[in-house]
């Protein structure tokens, strides 16, 4: 029987805070319905407390018999996961009131999913990774279908559930094969064997490929991307925002740990080729198909596919440069995407109606704050300075060129050029088209606008001065176990 030490409890304090809060939320929901309206605030408080705990408590390194590693890397990843969750809850408050959905479970599920992705990100053991993955996925299946009276929403939930279950099965089976090939569930050990052998044994290779396949579903990489547009479109907007960032962040870290642990850049040219193809295909398909989208949530789904393609370039490069680029990219992506989705939540009439881009005509002057925030987020997503999206792409392409992948960088910038087309289209519809005769009734939500403004401001200021985040990413990546 394992007896946890004091340090081990401290190491997972942020997760404990969230879990306890989730339980508390459920109790309040069930027995104290009068306190229901404070749940949003309570959840945000818990997340803020969790961030504080992660940043101020000491980081002991390997804990829980080496299953988890709580170090600077974990702190970095947890921070942006928690920030994303914070934004999602921030948006969700007014949203839940408007749609009159039952709100207690919503917050509890968001908290559980957050804990799941945090566990996933700090695990160095196949078992805990899988536990984290499931803890992340199952609440998301429910959250996606949360507006149970809306057909599109239920469709989204079902789609995500079926595809997600497949992905989990892939990951589980792949992990079994990895275990069979290396007789260990420890990532470091699995990696060490590959590095010492100098190649991937067939069993390990198949296992790794299946895990990557499963993670690719979570990341919505081509060819496992088809669920993304429907799910993004149908899910409640705060959930979409959460879904677009948190699972991807956690899955990319797991992928990075495995790639780096097995030193695949030098061991397996086949991995490099396959991953490059996936990255290029994701960027190209995402960007080209996004051009023809009429619903802004679908457009952002395709843009998300493309962005994970860019991030995958950094995973391929790996090493200190590539790893730091992955972390920086995810942090930047969190801010940009949260800003964009907060604006979508504000510029939305009814949840079950499509969020047509053409409905935004002339809103630049009617809703100046939300429109400006959306503009900044979209410029950032398209990679134009001085916003953080440019810095993120710069960091990724720099890492690629330094490792000799000039062609990946060239394809990447060509893709950013394609992406400019659809991002800029939204902006001209906002500012350069007249208001339509029938003006959409968007209302005004102070918290959502505040969330959008904070994200947009962060996108701008951190784009001008990215040094601190970059330094944190660079020192965090040194903790990536090899």
């Amino acid at each position, binding site marked *: 029987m394992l007896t946890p030490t004091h340090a081990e409890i401290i190491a997972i304090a942020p997760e404990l805070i969230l879990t306890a809060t989730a339980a508390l939320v459920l109790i309040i929901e069930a027995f104290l319905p009068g306190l229901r309206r404070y749940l949003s605030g309570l959840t945000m408080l818990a997340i803020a407390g969790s961030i504080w705990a992660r940043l101020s408590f000491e980081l002991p390194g390997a804990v829980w018999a080496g299953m988890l590693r709580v170090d600077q890397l974990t702190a970095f990843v947890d921070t942006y996961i928690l920030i994303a969750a914070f934004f999602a809850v921030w948006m969700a408050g007014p949203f839940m009131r408007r749609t009159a959905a039952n709100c207690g479970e919503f917050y509890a599920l968001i908290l559980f999913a957050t804990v799941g992705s945090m566990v996933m990100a700090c695990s160095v053991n196949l078992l805990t990774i899988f536990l984290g993955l499931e803890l992340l996925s199952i609440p998301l299946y429910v959250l996606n279908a949360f507006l149970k009276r809306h057909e599109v929403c239920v469709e989204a939930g079902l789609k995500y559930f079926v595809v997600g279950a497949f992905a989990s099965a892939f990951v589980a089976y792949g992990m079994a094969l990895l275990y069979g090939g290396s007789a260990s569930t420890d990532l470091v050990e699995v990696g060490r064997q590959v590095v010492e052998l100098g190649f991937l044994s067939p069993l390990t290779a198949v296992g790794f490929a299946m895990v990557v396949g499963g993670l690719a579903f979570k990341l919505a990489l081509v060819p496992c991307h088809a669920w993304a547009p429907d799910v993004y479109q149908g899910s409640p907007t705060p959930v979409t925002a959460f879904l677009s960032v948190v699972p991807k962040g956690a899955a990319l870290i797991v992928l990075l740990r495995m790639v780096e642990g097995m030193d695949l850049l030098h061991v397996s040219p086949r991995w490099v080729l396959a991953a490059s193809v996936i990255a290029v295909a994701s960027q190209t398909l995402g960007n080209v198909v996004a051009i023809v989208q009429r619903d802004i949530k679908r457009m952002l789904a395709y843009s998300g596919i493309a962005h994970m393609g860019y991030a995958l370039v950094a995973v391929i490069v790996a090493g200190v440069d590539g790893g730091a680029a992955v972390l920086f990219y995810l942090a930047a992506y969190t801010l940009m995407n949260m800003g964009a989705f907060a604006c979508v939540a504000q510029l939305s009439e009814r949840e079950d109606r499509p969020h047509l881009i053409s409905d935004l005509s002339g809103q630049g*002057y009617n809703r100046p704050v939300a429109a400006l925030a959306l503009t900044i987020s979209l410029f950032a997503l398209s990679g134009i300075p001085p916003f953080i999206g440019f810095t993120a792409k710069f960091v990724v392409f*720099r890492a690629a060129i330094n490792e000799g992948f*000039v062609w990946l*960088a*060239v394809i990447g*910038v060509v893709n950013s*050029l394609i992406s*400019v087309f659809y991002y800029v289209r939204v902006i*001209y519809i906002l500012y350069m088209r007249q208001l339509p005769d029938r003006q959409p009734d968007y209302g005004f939500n102070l918290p959502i606008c505040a969330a959008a403004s904070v994200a947009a401001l962060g996108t701008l200021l951190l784009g001008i001065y990215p040094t601190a985040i970059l330094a944190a990413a660079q020192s965090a990546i040194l903790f990536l176990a090899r």
Partner: protein
Amino acid sequence: MLNDHLLTIVTLGPTIFAVLLLFIPMRFKTVHRVITLITSIVMFGFSTRLWTGFNPDVPGFQLMPKAIPWIPQFGITYHVGVDGISLLLVLLTTLLLPVVVLAAWSLNIEHIKSLHITFLLLTTGMIGTFVALDLFLFYVFWEITLIPMYFIIGVWGGPRRIYAAVKFFIFTMAGSVFMLVAILYLAWFHHQQTGVWSYSYLDFLQTAPLLPTTGGLFAPGLLVFAAFLLAFAIKVPIFPLHTWLPDAHVEAPSTGSVLLAGVLLKMGTYGLLRFNHALLPDAWDVFAPLLIVLAVTGIIYGALVAMVQPDVKKLVAYSSVSHLGFVVLGLAAGTQASTQGAVLQMVNHGLTTGALFLLVGMLYERTYTRLIDRYGGLAGVMPIFTGIFLVVTLGSIGLPGLNGFVGEFLILAGSWAEHPVAVVFAGLGIILSAVYMLWMVQRVFWGPVDITANYALPDINLREVFVVAPMVVLIVWIGIHPNTFLEPMEASVRLLLAR
């Protein structure tokens, strides 16, 4: 002390005031106008300090404070400075800003606040592009100019403004993304050579010329050169990449056209000289014949197309293609005289074409048309306006004693020794420019007044005189005493051309 921060003040000052404007409610239109005008005049005042503080005998960069670390992990710094070449372009920019703000006074539109904010942000981008000595910083400023210009064309432009704005955005972006890869590659190469991460222009001057340019079409030096060239050639624009320019100019409001023609296009020619020529001299020799052919083609083509335009503004836009062909020819010939002529011609084009766009804008405000055949006989109705227009036109076609002559003469004289054929064809372009400009003047200003409504057109007013006066003064000044402007750049150009 002040000299150390002078460039930073001139570059970032406009943005600080733009942020200030953000907090003033949009209904106080006059407040926005006055603040922006005062800002622009103050910035011009600071930039005259640049002129007086500049030592023309020093060839290298001056008024250059120490580089401030910005992203130290990659060796990226905030580093600015001017030499004789960029000094003139910075002054051109700071001069055009108050002119444009004053010209926008007559606009009776709702969104005065956002218009002035975009002017100020655009100024930061333009000046920053000319003074940046770190290639990351340069790229940031280069790209920043896109966003305000996109809004200027797209929000305040003509009927096809959205098409023009998006075309402008995509075209420019298409060039610059490859430049980003080239910059990253240069930094990697610098690290290979020296073991130090840096994006500094001064560091790249040491290592970039070492890039191999032999070994076929895909030699790294040639590819990096081509990437820079594409970015700058689109911006200039060099034939056949010019197709965005007429659309952008015709749809942009006249204030936007002034900044676009006056300054934004110069960012392209400036980049050719500063980066392509100085960083990759060997590749420059390989590409120079191509540049000369394209430049001469552009001169003739631009002139021929300008000749048949029914729209005055489009005519001036195509004449830009022709005039910038001269600049590129001067740069590509690469002698001391031709290069100095090219730099001077950049300023000349900014002044004359800027003034032409402003004057055309004034005509448009009176008649709401820009079609040449809707005018006629305006000389009798608006005599003072006609006189000013004529001076500017003559400056544009290169009448001796006015500015255009000096620039074109230096370019052609400097290119003659090496490229006589190109000079002959370019000379043809001068004749053509006289044809299309004077023909246009004839149809607009002489003859009988065909349209009765035009009898009542008011002549130029005092504000409008102030708008064009600085340009007219400089057009004459450069024509009579060009040495004022040629001297400061002489040493810098000599240093740049010396390998």
